């Protein structure tokens, strides 16, 4: 028998039942909940007279709708200025309190973006099946877990039954060997992958990220990469467990205590067997990856920083051609324009992709001793969680940003999707470390360019995109 992939193993160990029609029931170990996609699920449970199957499997925190200014945050939920957002956050609190669900409330130090909080607290662990009503749940796959986003009906389903009706996905291996150049970050790697396979390239697959680049990548870098698996169309992305994983998980507040050795023995099996077969294999040369910048309105519209905006006339496929035209128009760009000539109005460093301590350190390194360009109206740093914020402050990073003219905010999703007050105005252009550059994503009419934290920091200083590799060298 052929060997098993990591995904095969995770699937097997969570299979409750296989039905004749090919569907299966899989057991869910961890359910993460936030305020936006859960209210209708809680309501559904209540209407049907059902209770959560296993309350202890659920961890909640508000993130999408919470304000990020310290002024608004000072008085907790009551301080949320937007009345509709306030109701939503309050509803989460009430639902969790009523059912006895562990929730990191708005001003708990452990509050933050769901996908930052899960790994950081140890609520999400290797070998688990992890779901959340949020597509970027794929982030947690970096731990060697099967993690994916679900809709609100499924949130209700998992609460009521601890299971999901699922169909096995296909296996894809994205293998990146070689060594990354200086100034090239995990964000650049994943953007380059999406540029290669496209935003629908991973549809129907679970992606395993393998090869030298990921083996030597930090856990936080792996979280960044798996975060954007969904932008490649894959519901789940994952990395095999190794010493880096175990080192990361150890001593996390909710990591197994008494059962540590037993857990590690199981986790050490969480890698694809040498003779495992994948339905699709994609290989990239890590040494060739350059810092990336998206120029369009889909994450696959991405280029190396030294590239130039494409010309729609060079595209023969009519659907693609119109996509390029529409994107250029929306983004206010000219065909052939050099990426480094594009000026930015705002800079956002944050989101579940790039708001962990390593991201903040890497941006701070570029910013240190410099000042944001006068033409940049706002540069903001939004840590992914209260823990990240506290750690950054302990290292004095907040000061570096403040001295450089950046705003240092309270944790939350913030301008990644602009549900709170942090947003772009129509026509404004943003260098953003988030994961989606869709039309209107960061605010009605706003224009988003996705980049790494270092590249965002560089753009804030220069006032336009720069190749951070040269940027660092000149100072």
């Amino acid at each position, binding site marked *: 028998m052929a060997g098993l992939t990591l995904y095969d193993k995770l699937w097997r160990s969570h299979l409750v039942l296989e039905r004749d029609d*090919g569907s299966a029931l899989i*057991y869910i170990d961890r359910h993460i909940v936030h305020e936006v996609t859960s209210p209708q699920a809680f309501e559904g449970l209540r209407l049907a007279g059902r209770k959560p199957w296993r309350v202890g499997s659920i961890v909640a925190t508000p993130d999408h709708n919470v304000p990020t200014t310290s002024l608004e945050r000072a008085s907790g939920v009551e301080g949320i200025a937007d009345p509709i957002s306030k109701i939503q956050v309050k509803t989460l609190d009430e639902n969790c309190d009523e059912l006895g669900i562990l929730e990191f409330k708005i001003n708990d130090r452990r509050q933050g973006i769901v996908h930052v909080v899960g790994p950081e607290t140890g609520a999400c662990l290797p070998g688990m099946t992890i779901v959340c009503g949020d597509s970027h749940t794929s982030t947690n796959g970096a731990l060697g877990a099967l993690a994916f986003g*679900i809709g609100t009906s499924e949130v209700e389903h998992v609460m009521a039954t601890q299971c999901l009706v699922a169909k096995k996905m296909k296996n894809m291996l994205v293998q990146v060997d070689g060594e990354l150049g200086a100034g090239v970050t995990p964000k650049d790697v994943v953007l380059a992958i999406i540029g290669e396979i496209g935003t629908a390239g991973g549809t129907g697959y679970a992606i395993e990220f393998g090869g030298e680049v990921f083996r030597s990548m930090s856990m936080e870098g792996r979280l960044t990469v798996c975060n954007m698996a969904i932008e490649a169309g894959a519901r789940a992305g994952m990395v095999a467990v190794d010493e880096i994983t175990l080192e990361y998980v150890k001593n996390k507040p909710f990591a197994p205590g008494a059962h540590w050795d037993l857990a590690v023995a199981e986790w050490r099996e969480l890698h694809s067997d040498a003779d495992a077969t994948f339905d699709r294999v994609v290989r990239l040369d890590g040494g060739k990856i350059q810092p990336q910048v998206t120029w369009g309105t889909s994450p696959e519209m991405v280029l190396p920083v030294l590239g130039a905006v494409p010309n729609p006339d060079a595209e023969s496929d009519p659907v693609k051609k119109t996509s390029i035209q529409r994107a250029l128009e929306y983004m206010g760009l000219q065909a052939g324009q050099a990426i480094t000539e594009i000026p930015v109005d705002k800079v956002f460093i944050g989101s579940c992709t790039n708001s962990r301590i390593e991201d903040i350190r890497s941006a701070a390194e570029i910013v240190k001793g410099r000042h944001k360009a006068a033409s940049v109206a706002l540069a903001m740093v939004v840590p992914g969680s209260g823990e990240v914020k506290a750690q950054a402050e302990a290292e004095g990073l907040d000061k570096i940003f403040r001295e450089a003219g950046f705003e240092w905010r309270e944790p939350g999703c913030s301008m990644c999707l602009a549900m709170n007050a942090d947003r772009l105005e129509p026509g404004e252009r943003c260098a953003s470390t988030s994961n989606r550059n869709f039309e209107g994503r960061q605010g009605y009419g706003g224009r988003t360019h996705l980049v790494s934290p270092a590249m965002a920091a560089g753009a804030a200083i220069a006032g336009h995109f720069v190749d951070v590799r040269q940027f660092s060298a000149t100072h």
Partner: protein
Amino acid sequence: MKSFTKITGLVAPMDRANVDTDLIIPKQFLKSIARTGFGANAFDELRYLDKGEPGKDNSSRPLNADFPLNHPRYQGATILLTRENFGCGSSREHAPWALDEFGFRCIIAPSFADIFFNNCFKNALLPVVLPAEVVSLLFNDMYACEGYQLTVDLQEQCVIRPDGQSYPFEVDAFRKHCLLHGLDDIGLTLQDAEHIKAYEAKRRVSAPWLFDTAY
């Protein structure tokens, strides 16, 4: 749940690839804690010329005359015809809720994003995958003929053109069964509660840390 068996209805275009769920229902409407009320703001940024906000009176907003779903000929459409990778991006089930409330019962595309595809079935909104060439052909038909209708038959798993030509599509046996009979997923799964308990009991022994409630 509502059921879906067979419909014949007016077809409307959403002629672009990679339509994401932010475009289907913009984030400011996700603040609602209700399951309804999203239809009025489906495709808000394309439908109106100004920025929509929850609670705003849509009847006084300027309509985008270039947006096909605003054209008289597509009013009352129940089938949405679109391009590759429809429903990509955020997992928000508000997207199918909005489309359903807008009046669509079926979406035809060459491909869908996984989470959206799944969410559709939970709301009796049938996503149908047809080959890209067939979708292009249907687009041409539809543009050429005002009042263009298609029939979508879930039992027979086919889309039928007015001239009788039929195109088969695939659908999961389990999903088909649930949709045809309007079955509640949760109720079905709970019929297997004994299996779930047995699985749990085994895991408690082999992986006890998963059940620690240290917090």
